[in-house]
C-alpha cells in the first residue's frame, strides 16, 4: 500500500460516477422501502419459500419492485428482518398501515416500518436515559379527607336559587360552609356519589365532578342535555341519560379528535362512563317503548351489589352486562317474558348450598304481570349462569313491588291483588328466604292494601303502611304497622313468622324511612301540604313500651316525637344514623321552602327557611372500615370518647359564645355612639327634648258582675 503513489482525492473527477449511482433523494425514493421485522429466522434453504410467502403477502397491498425482497443472511440463517421495496410510496404506506402487527403464524408477528422512518427517528437517537417529565395532576388532596375530620362532623349540600354550597354540620352549632357557596354551580341539580367521594353538578352540556378538600374540578363528562344521572355502587361507573341523541361534530372539525363518542354511538341517549378515565364505556339507544314514555323510570341501568354486573330491562327480556367490557353475560339476553320490573339483591347472597370460601351469589329478581295463558310470576335468577332458581306464580295481580333486604337475605314481594270485581285491593307479602335451600316462600296475607313497605336495614323487622281506602285520599285512613319475627321457645322461629307488634291508626303517613343503622324510624307524610313526621324507637330501653301484641317478638316500641312540618317534600337520614333532614323543595311547590334537621330522637336541631330552596343532601359515607371488634371496643369505651367530644364541644361553644357577645357589645357601642351623635345634632338645632317623666294617670275600672240573683221572702 505504501508503494502506491499519493493521489489527491480531491483532484479526481467523480462526477460521471456520481451521476450514474446517485439516488434522486427528494425523500420519495426512500419512502418506497419498508423494513419488516419479526419474520421467522430460517435456514438458507428455506429462504425461497419464505420469500414467496412474503412476496404474496406484501404484493397484496401494492406493486413491488422487481427482485425487491432483500433478506440479509448470517451464518446460513436469515436474521429475522428483511427489506422490501415498493414501486410507489403509497404501496409502502399501505403496507405499514395494513400489515403492521400482522400475525404470520402463532409465533411470528410482523412489524412493518418505513425505511425512511429509521432515518427520521434513529439518527438523533440519544442512548442516555432521560427521566420523562411526570405530568402533575392538579392536587385535589385525598378525596376522602373530609372523613378524617377530627370532630367527625357531617357534610351536606344545599341548593337554593342559583347557589349551591357544601356545609359542615355539627350537632348544636350552626352549619359552616366548607367552601364559599358557588353561584351557578349547577344548571340543573347536584348529587353526591354513593360513597361520598365526589360531588357532581349537572349542566346543560354534561356533568362536572368535583372533589377533594376544596371541591376542585376532577372530571367533565360531555353529554349534552343530560337530565338523569346514576352511579354504580362502587363509584367506578357513571350512568347518564339525555333526551338528546348523540351527534358527532363534522368530519374535519377540530373538536372531533377529542370527542368522547364514536360513530357507533350516534343516536344513543344512555351512556355508561368509566369515572376514572372520564371516557364512555358503552352507549345505548333507548328501547322503543321507553322513547314514548313521558316520565322516565330511573335508574334504567341497575347494578349488582359489587358493580360486577349491570342490567337493563327491555321488552320481554333483561340484558345483563358484565363490567368492565359491558358485553352481554353469556352473549345472550336473559329471557323474561313480559318483565315489568326487576331488582338486584343489594348484597352478595350466601346460600346454604354454597361451599366455604366461595364468592357470594349475584341474584336478581323480576316479576311479570299476567299474560294470555300465563299467570303473573316472580322469578329469582342467578347471575352469571342466568338460571332461574325460584319462581312463584300469582293470580289476580294488580301490581307487584320487589323489596330486597339490605343484607340480601330476604326478598319481599308486595303483591297487590284485586277481588274478582276489581273493586277492592288487598295485599300479600311474599317473603323469599333466598339463603335457604330451594328458597322457601312465606306468605303474609293482609286484608288491606299496603301502600308502603320498608325493611329495617339491620334486622328482619319491617314497617308497612296500609289502608282500605285505595286512592289514599280520605284523611286519617292510613295505618302504620311494624312487624318482627315471632320468637317461640326462646329463639326466632326457623319458619319465620312475622307478627305486627305495633299498629298506629288514623295517620296520613305515606313514607317509612328507617335509620341506616336501624332501630330508629320515621313515618312521614310527604308532598301532602300539611306534612308531619313521627319518630319511633323499635328497641326502647325504658320500662314501659308501647307494643300492642300478645306474641313474643324482639322489639320494644316507643313513640319518640311528633312534628308537624308544613309542606315537607323530602326526607333523608344521614348515613351514620345520627340525624335526619327534611326539606320542602321549590321543585314541588313554592311555599315555605327550606329545611330542618332533627336528631334520631326527633329533636329539632336547626331549621332554616330559604327562598327558592331546592335540595338538601347529606354527603354519603363509605362503609365503615372498623372490624366488629373495633366497634365493640368503641362501644365499651363510649363514655370516655363522649367525654372527650363533649369537652371539645363546650370549648368551641364557649368560643362561639364569646364571639357573639363581643359582636353584640360592638353593635351596642356603635348604636350608642350613633345616638349620642344624633342627640348632639338635635341639641345644636335646639330640638332636643329631654325625656319627660309623665305622670301616668291610673284609670281604675270597676266591673261588677251579678253572679246570682235570689229572691227570698223573709217573714
Amino acid at each position, binding site marked *: 500500500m505504501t508503494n502506491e503513489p499519493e493521489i489527491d482525492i480531491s483532484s479526481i473527477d467523480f462526477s460521471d460516477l456520481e451521476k450514474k449511482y446517485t439516488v434522486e433523494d427528494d425523500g420519495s425514493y426512500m419512502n418506497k422501502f419498508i423494513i419488516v421485522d419479526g419474520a421467522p429466522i430460517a435456514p438458507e434453504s428455506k429462504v425461497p419459500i419464505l420469500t414467496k410467502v412474503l412476496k404474496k403477502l406484501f404484493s397484496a397491498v401494492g406493486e413491488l419492485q422487481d427482485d425487491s425482497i432483500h433478506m440479509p443472511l448470517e451464518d446460513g440463517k436469515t436474521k429475522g428482518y428483511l427489506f422490501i421495496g415498493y414501486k410507489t410510496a403509497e404501496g409502502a404506506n399501505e403496507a405499514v398501515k395494513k400489515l403492521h402487527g400482522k400475525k404470520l403464524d402463532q409465533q411470528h408477528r410482523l412489524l412493518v416500518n418505513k425505511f425512511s422512518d429509521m432515518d427520521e427517528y434513529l439518527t438523533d437517537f440519544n442512548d442516555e436515559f432521560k427521566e420523562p417529565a411526570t405530568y402533575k395532576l392538579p392536587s385535589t388532596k385525598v378525596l376522602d379527607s373530609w372523613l378524617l375530620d377530627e370532630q367527625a362532623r357531617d357534610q351536606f349540600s344545599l341548593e337554593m336559587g342559583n347557589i349551591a354550597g357544601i356545609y359542615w354540620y355539627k350537632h348544636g352549632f350552626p352549619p359552616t360552609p366548607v367552601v364559599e357557596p358557588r353561584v351557578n354551580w349547577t344548571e340543573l341539580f347536584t348529587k353526591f356519589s354513593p360513597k361520598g367521594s365526589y360531588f357532581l353538578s349537572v349542566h346543560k352540556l354534561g356533568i362536572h365532578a368535583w372533589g377533594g378538600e376544596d371541591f376542585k374540578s376532577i372530571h367533565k363528562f360531555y353529554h349534552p342535555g343530560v337530565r338523569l344521572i346514576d352511579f354504580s355502587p362502587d363509584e367506578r361507573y357513571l350512568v347518564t341519560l339525555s333526551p338528546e341523541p348523540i351527534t358527532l361534530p363534522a368530519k374535519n372539525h377540530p373538536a372531533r379528535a377529542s370527542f368522547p363518542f364514536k360513530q357507533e354511538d350516534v343516536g344513543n341517549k344512555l351512556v355508561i362512563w368509566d369515572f376514572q378515565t372520564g371516557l364512555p364505556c358503552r352507549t345505548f339507544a333507548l328501547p322503543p317503548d321507553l322513547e314514548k314514555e313521558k316520565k322516565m323510570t330511573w335508574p334504567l341501568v341497575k347494578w349488582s351489589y359489587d358493580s360486577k354486573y349491570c342490567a337493563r330491562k327491555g321488552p320481554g327480556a333483561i340484558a345483563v352486562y358484565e363490567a368492565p367490557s359491558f358485553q352481554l353475560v353469556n352473549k345472550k339476553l336473559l329471557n323474561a317474558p313480559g318483565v315489568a320490573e326487576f331488582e338486584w339483591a343489594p348484597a352478595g347472597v350466601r346460600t346454604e348450598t354454597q361451599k366455604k370460601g366461595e364468592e357470594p351469589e349475584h341474584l336478581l329478581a323480576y316479576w311479570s304481570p299476567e299474560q294470555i295463558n300465563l299467570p303473573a310470576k316472580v322469578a329469582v335468577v342467578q347471575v352469571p349462569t342466568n338460571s332461574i332458581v325460584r319462581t312463584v306464580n300469582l293470580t289476580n295481580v294488580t301490581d307487584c313491588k320487589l323489596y330486597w333486604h339490605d343484607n340480601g337475605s330476604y326478598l319481599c314481594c308486595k303483591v297487590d291483588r284485586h277481588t274478582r270485581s276489581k273493586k277492592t285491593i288487598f295485599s300479600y307479602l311474599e317473603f323469599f328466604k333466598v339463603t335457604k335451600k330451594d328458597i322457601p316462600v312465606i306468605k303474609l296475607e293482609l286484608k288491606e292494601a299496603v301502600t308502603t313497605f320498608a325493611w329495617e336495614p339491620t334486622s328482619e323487622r319491617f314497617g308497612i303502611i296500609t289502608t282500605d281506602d285505595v286512592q289514599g285520599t280520605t284523611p286519617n285512613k292510613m295505618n302504620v304497622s311494624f312487624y318482627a319475627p315471632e320468637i317461640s321457645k326462646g329463639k326466632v322461629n326457623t319458619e319465620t313468622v312475622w307478627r305486627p307488634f305495633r299498629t298506629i291508626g288514623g295517620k296520613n303517613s305515606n313514607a317509612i324511612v328507617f335509620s341506616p343503622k336501624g332501630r330508629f324510624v320515621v313515618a312521614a307524610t310527604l308532598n301532602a301540604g300539611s306534612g308531619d313526621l313521627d319518630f319511633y324507637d323499635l328497641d326502647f330501653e325504658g320500662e314501659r313500651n308501647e307494643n300492642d301484641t300478645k306474641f313474643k317478638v324482639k322489639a320494644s316500641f316507643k313513640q319518640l316525637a311528633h312534628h308537624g312540618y308544613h309542606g315537607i317534600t323530602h326526607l333523608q337520614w344521614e348515613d351514620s344514623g345520627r340525624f335526619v333532614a327534611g326539606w320542602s323543595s321549590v321543585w314541588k311547590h313554592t311555599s*315555605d321552602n327550606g329545611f330542618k334537621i332533627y336528631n334520631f330522637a326527633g329533636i329539632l336541631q336547626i331549621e332554616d327557611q330559604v327562598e327558592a330552596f331546592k335540595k338538601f343532601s347529606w354527603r354519603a359515607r363509605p362503609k365503615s372500615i372498623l372490624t366488629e371488634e373495633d366497634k365493640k371496643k368503641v362501644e365499651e369505651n363510649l363514655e370516655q370518647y363522649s367525654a372527650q367530644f363533649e369537652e371539645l364541644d363546650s370549648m368551641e361553644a364557649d368560643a362561639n359564645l364569646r364571639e357573639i357577645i363581643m359582636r*353584640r357589645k360592638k*353593635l351596642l357601642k356603635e*348604636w350608642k355612639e*350613633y345616638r349620642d351623635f344624633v342627640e348632639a345634632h*338635635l341639641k345644636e338645632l335646639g330640638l332636643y*327634648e329631654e325625656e319627660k317623666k309623665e305622670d301616668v294617670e291610673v*284609670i281604675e275600672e270597676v266591673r261588677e258582675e251579678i253572679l246570682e240573683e235570689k229572691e227570698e221572702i223573709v217573714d
Partner: protein
Amino acid sequence: MRPILLKGHERPLSQVKFNRDGDLLFSVSKDSVASIWYSSNGERLGTLNGHSGAISAIDIDPTTTFAITGSADFSAKLWRVETGECIFTWNTVTPVRGVEFNKDASKVLVLTAEVMGHPGTISIYPVDFTKEEQSTEPLLVIKRQPELGVFTVAGWSYGDKYIIAGHNDGSISKIDAETGEFLETAKYHEGIVTDLQFSPDRTYFITSSKDQSAVLVDVLEFKLLKQYQAKAPVNSAVITPVKDYIILGGGQDAKDVTTTKSADGKFESKIFHKIFKDEIGRIKGHFGPINTIAIHPKGTGFASGGEDGYVRLHHFDQPYFDFQYDVEKTAAATNKASLQTAS
C-alpha cells in the same frame, strides 16, 4: 299577652294609629268608615262617617282634637274627634294614599296616587284649627322625580325639616320640607316600600317592603343603620319606644292567600331586636296578611290591622320589658354606676 280583638270593620284595614297620649286607637279600613277605640279595653268610642270610598290613612293632631283621613274617594277630610263631625274636605284629583300632620299640626301632608295620567304628588296644606274653613291652596307640591318610582309613603322628619318619602321601586328620598328639593335618595329595597314610621324623636325611621325586609335609616346622613329579614313580604314596620325592638307585620300577598293555607301565609307580627337584628318573638293570630301596625306611644302595647278586617290590640306583658341580652344588662349596670358616681 292576650290580644283584644276589635271587630268593627267589614273590609281590610289600611291603617291603625294611636293618639299621642295612647288612650285612643284610630283605625281606618277599606269599608270607608274610621273607628275610634279605647286602647285600654278595646271598647269602641265611635266612628267617623262621611267618606264614600276606601280610607287609606289617618292622623291625629297632638291634642287629639282633630283627625285627618285620606280616602280613595278623592278627598281628605278633617274631623273633630270629640263629636265625630267632618269639618272640612280637601278634594283631590286622584285618590289619597297618605296623610300626616307635622309636629304642631300647623301643616298636613297629603300624598296622592298616580292614576289616570295624573302624577302622584305630596302636597302640603296649611291647617288652622281656629277656623273651620281651611285653605285649599297647598304651600308646596312635590312631584315625583322621573327617575324614581311613584310615591307610596311619606312622613315628616325631626323639626319638620325634611319629608321622607318611599317609592314603589324600593327607593326612599329625603326632601326639603320648605323648598321641595330632593336632597338625597337611596335604594335599600328591591320591592315596593310599604310603610315608613319614625323613631319617637324622628331622627331615624324604619321602612318596610314587599322584598321581605325592613331597613332602619338615619335621617341626617341617610345611611343604612340596620336591615331585618322577615322571610315574608312586610307591609308595616314600627320602632318601639322604651325597648330597643322593632315590630314587623306582613305575610303573603292577599292575592295569593286563596292558594295557600293560613299556616304558610306567615301572617305574623315579628319582633326583632333593633340593634342585634335577631328575631326574638312572633305573634300569630291574623288569618290574612297584616296591613298595618301601630305602637303605643309609651311602648306598652301595639295594634295590628289585617286584611282579615280585624284589629288586634296587644298589651305587652312584663317579660317583654324584662327581656334583656346579657350585654344590655351589663351596659345598663355600668351606665347606672357611672351616673351614680357622677352625682
